[in-house]
């Protein structure tokens, strides 16, 4: 079987409003906290993400990045505070709103006993996609997985699984892409291609939120940088080269 190629960037589109006229939602967190019994995972986070931003969330392990991403993906309910999408509180959102979100977590959400194409076919059915076969072929090609369509997910390497997971999250072309340390398990060329691919998604007007603990790698396509420490948002600024030293210092301080 020929080796799968790296993800290729989505077709270039003119930056600005989405071609379908639908914009990404404005996301707002109002003094949002999340507790696990006595452990405070997120501590009164105040944050607004404008449509079309590319946000990188930095922080060491246990800083609250995963909790933040899962909360934004509507997988976790806040213990206190509010999460709003276009000023609508999360509990009041219609379940159909989830169509506008795509999420990649630490796990792949893939069924080992199904092939790559069958996994995508299942998720296409969940999202009620029109012409699923065509879309699955497109997304497999975009991720360089067309040669692995009939491979069982369990037989794919960690990197290929991660690419298939990206394909799953991208299948329904969500307005907001939420990625929790998506580069884990990928080799360096594939990581670079993935960042280019994400930058391509961002150019189509979508909001991208990526968590990472690698400052140098994650900053390239970002428009904004957040730093979490012990659940608190301690740094929130546009991604500017002149602030790189400050960010590095804060990240190193958090790691100590």
């Amino acid at each position, binding site marked *: 079987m020929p080796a799968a190629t790296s993800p290729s960037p989505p077709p270039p589109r003119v930056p600005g409003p989405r071609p379908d006229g639908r914009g990404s939602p404005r996301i707002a967190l109002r003094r949002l906290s999340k507790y696990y019994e006595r452990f405070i995972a997120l501590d009164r986070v105040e944050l607004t993400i404008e449509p079309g931003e590319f946000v990188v969330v930095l922080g060491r392990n246990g800083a609250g990045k995963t909790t933040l991403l*899962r909360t934004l993906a509507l*997988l976790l*309910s806040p213990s206190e505070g509010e999460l709003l999408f276009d000023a609508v509180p999360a509990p009041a959102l219609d*379940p159909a709103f989830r169509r506008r979100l795509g*999420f990649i977590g630490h*796990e792949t*959400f*893939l069924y080992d006993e199904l092939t790559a194409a069958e996994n995508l076919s299942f998720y296409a059915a969940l*999202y*009620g996609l029109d012409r699923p076969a065509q879309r699955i072929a497109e997304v497999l090609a975009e991720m360089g997985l067309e040669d692995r369509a009939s491979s069982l997910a369990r037989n794919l390497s960690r990197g290929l699984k991660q690419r298939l997971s990206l394909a799953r999250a991208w299948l329904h072309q969500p307005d907001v892409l939420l990625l929790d340390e998506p580069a884990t398990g990928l080799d360096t060329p594939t990581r670079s291609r993935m960042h280019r691919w994400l930058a391509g998604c961002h150019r189509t007007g979508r909001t991208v939120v990526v968590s990472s603990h690698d400052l140098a790698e994650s900053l390239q396509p970002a428009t904004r940088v957040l730093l979490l420490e012990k659940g608190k948002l301690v740094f929130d600024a546009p991604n500017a080269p002149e602030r790189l030293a400050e960010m590095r210092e804060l990240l190193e301080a958090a790691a100590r």
Partner: protein
Amino acid sequence: MDTLRVAAALFRKDLLAERRTKDVSTSILLFGFTVAVAFTFAFEPTAEEARKIAGGLLWLAFLFSAILGLSRAFARETANDCLRGLRMAPADPGAIYLGKLASNVLFLVLAEVVLLPVFGIFFNLSLWDRPGWLFLILLLGTWGLASLGTMFSAVSANTRMQELMLPLLLLPLTVPVLIAAIECTTILLEGRPMTDAHLWFRLLVGFDIIFTVLCWLLFSYVVEE
């Protein structure tokens, strides 16, 4: 519509996965067959005794097999955190329950249809005199077991003592459906008119409706983090 679409997608996915791995069906069938053999050698009933006790033994075998099968129902969803992937679907979480319930009922009924002739041979029973009634009892009884079993399978999926938790939660609550199914089956096997089972049928139907609706409505609390 979203709910039905998500439930149907999950049902089809479970069928495909089961056809490929045969995880659930193999364990149910092997266990059911072992119980049938054990009961036969333990009781060695006459034809008359067999008609009286077979309903109870049959449903005990189905219950134990069902517990084994139901304990695997959410195993596929917990691997690779797939349950979170399902929760991202644009439908209420009750859709996950309905899809899982449908696949559980199908797997259990198919296993029972295979196990029935085994019981028929070992206990020298004529099971096929009134096949429509027999199938109806199987369907209603199994639906009752699966309605609660699917819910508790999800509850116990992420607990440390999964194998212990499911029967602990399930067994006390399934007593009514078990008694009703046993009574209906015994009336059928004894050749009595099915009008004698009228009340038991009503209990089965009522149990199935109440617990299916209740579990569907409560399922979002079960999968919520």
